[in-house]
Structure formats: C-alpha cells, structure tokens
C-alpha cells in the first residue's frame, strides 16, 4: 500500500466511523434539537473525510466533483439545521428548555398564527 492509499484508507475509515457515530447519536439523544447536532456533524465533516479519501485515490476530475459536493453541503447543511430547529422549536417539540428567549420573541411578533400559510 503506497502512502497515498494509506492516507486515503485512513480518511475513508474515519468518515464511515463518523457515520456510525452520528447514527448512534441519532438513536440515543433525547429530543430533536440534540439529534440535529448528531446529524449535521456528519453532513459536512463526513463528506470531507470520505470525499478526501476518494479524491486522493481518483483523478483531478474526481477531486473537483468531490470538492463541488463538499462546498454545496457546507453551504446547505447550516440552512437545513436552522430550518429544522426552528420548525421543531415552533412546534414545541422536545422537553421544555430551561431558558427560552426565542419563545418570547416568537409570541411577541405574532408569528404564531399561521394564517399566512396557504396550506
């Protein structure tokens, strides 16, 4: 195994171990907000590790494709986490927070009534 293959296998293995860790975290954590933590870790770091392994082994074109996906995930993962977290918070899911500043802001701003939704 050449040095490149060793480095690539280390990256691949750590990426898949992180995937198992995130899945276990998803199972054991109590409510949506903490499960979100486990899921979004994998979205960027998991792809960076697995993609890095693939880029090392493949040609420059492969590395470019992997870089494209990694940049895309790095841009969209936070947006997804924020959206899911806000929807879960607004639906009052999970055990009550010890201190909840957002609730006051949400109730104050009249966002509660969903009349604007055409659904």
């Amino acid at each position, binding site marked *: *195994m050449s040095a490149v*293959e060793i480095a*690539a*296998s280390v990256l*691949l*293995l750590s*990426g*898949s*171990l992180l*995937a*198992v860790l*995130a*899945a*276990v975290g*998803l*199972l054991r954590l109590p409510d*949506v907000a903490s*499960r*979100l933590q*486990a*899921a*979004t870790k*994998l*979205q960027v770091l*998991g*792809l960076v590790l*697995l*993609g890095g*392994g*693939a880029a090392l*082994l*493949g*040609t420059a*074109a*492969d590395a470019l*494709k*992997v870089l*494209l*996906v990694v940049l*895309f*995930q790095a841009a*969209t993962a936070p*947006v*997804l986490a924020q*959206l*899911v977290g806000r*929807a*879960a918070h607004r*639906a*009052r*899911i999970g055990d009550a927070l010890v201190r909840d500043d957002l609730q006051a802001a949400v109730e104050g701003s009249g966002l509660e009534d969903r009349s604007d939704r055409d*659904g």
Partner: protein
Amino acid sequence: MTAVLTITAALLFVAAALTLIRLLRGPTTHDRLVALDLLVVVLLGGIIVEAVARDAGAHLILLVVLALLGFLSTVSVLRFGVEEPR
C-alpha cells in the same frame, strides 16, 4: 485496499440501518426529517465508496444530484408539510 473499502461499506451499512431505526421509531415528523438527512449523507458515502471501488470517476456526479435532492426535499417538507398538533 479492497479490505478498507469493504470495511467502510460495512460501517456505512450499519449507519444506514441505525438511521432507519430512528426513521421508523421517530415520534415526530422532525425526527424523521433529521433521519432522512442523515440517510442522504450515508448514501453519498455509499456512492463514494462504490465509485472508488469500481475506479469509475464518472459516478461522482451522482453526489451533486443526491445532495441537491436531499436539501430541496427537506426544505419543501418543512415549508409546506409539517403541521404538528399544538
């Protein structure tokens, strides 16, 4: 090298199985959304492992498609679908 790839594929399989458990058991829709997000990334990993094993760089285009699909589906479910009983 093939041993590493098989171990990686096995670990990704275990991760996908655990995510499916959360997907089935998740009490609320939001849990299922998070589980689906995780499943998309595990599938991306699967595609990467398959592309490396088969030494076919062209398969990596699938990554972009699947990542975009995962993102758009979650956003659309959140925007239109999720109405939890208050």
